[in-house]
């Protein structure tokens, strides 16, 4: 088991794995979102390619009110 940060909260996952796999296991994954890993934007096309490992910070953001 390794620990990552998802939107600021610690989360256990079995092992290092591609981002899309991490996402597949999420419950209540929103329809529209965008992702940054360790402060870098990760385009959808890279979800399979990019490997999530121990200590990575994932930000999963959705549309929200703004001024």
């Amino acid at each position, binding site marked *: 088991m390794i620990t990552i940060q998802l939107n600021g909260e610690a989360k256990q996952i079995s092992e290092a794995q591609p981002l899309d796999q991490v996402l597949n296991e999420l419950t209540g994954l929103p329809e529209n979102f965008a992702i940054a890993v360790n402060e870098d*934007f990760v385009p959808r096309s890279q979800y399979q390619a990019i490997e999530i490992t121990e200590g990575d910070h994932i930000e999963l953001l959705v549309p929200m009110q703004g001024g």
Partner: protein
Amino acid sequence: MWNLADKEIESRLFIGSALYPSPQIMTDAIKASGSDVVTVSLRRQSQDSGNQNIFWDCIKELDINILPNTAGCHSVKEAVTTAQMARELFGTHWIKLEVIGDEYSLQPDPFALLEATRELISQGFEVFPYCTDDLVLCEKLAEAGCRILMPWGAPIGTGKGLINPYALKTLRQRMPDLTLVVDAGIGAPSHAALALEMGYDAVLLNTAVAQSPDPVTMARGFKAAVAAGRYAYEAGIMPEKDLAQPSTPTLGTPFWHQHS
């Protein structure tokens, strides 16, 4: 119709989507405002909302131009990443670029703003920088490739209106060809009308509508205000005079009116 970043739009009012009492009131107010441009942000989903996003469903339904912002960003890096996420999420290369330089005044950081602007323009974004009314900063943003500038009227959410009209007038005179939008600080329709009378192309506001006891009616007020200011700008405003001038003709006044 006027041209904003290669799109033909009608309204000269850009409106925010935050701080409304409810999604329904937000939708009604934005419709009432006649806006063709609405600002949104990116945030973490609240736990309880499941995979639902009622807010976003409302906004999509409005079917108007989305202008994502980078609100809350304090560094170039944060702003650039947020802009990139926004481009994918909202399917637009428009970005309202905010790089906050002070927690209390929420004023833009001219230095980080310029750097982030250069980077994002190199990446193909249409940058709408939320900036101060500093002429030199604005000139550098224009040199960096901005076609649109959004100087503040007053600090965000204060409703003070245009606290430095002299600077805003100078900006308009010196940058006749840019699209200039007064963003932030507008509290009442008369403020918006004044900005348009001064030749500003549009105003962007949120709090003044959303925090009114009756946002929908206030939205109508601002819709009318920008129209009023624009008509006046196009028609030409009478020069202010120091001495009174009778409107009713003095010719033909009865003899009892002849006064030395």
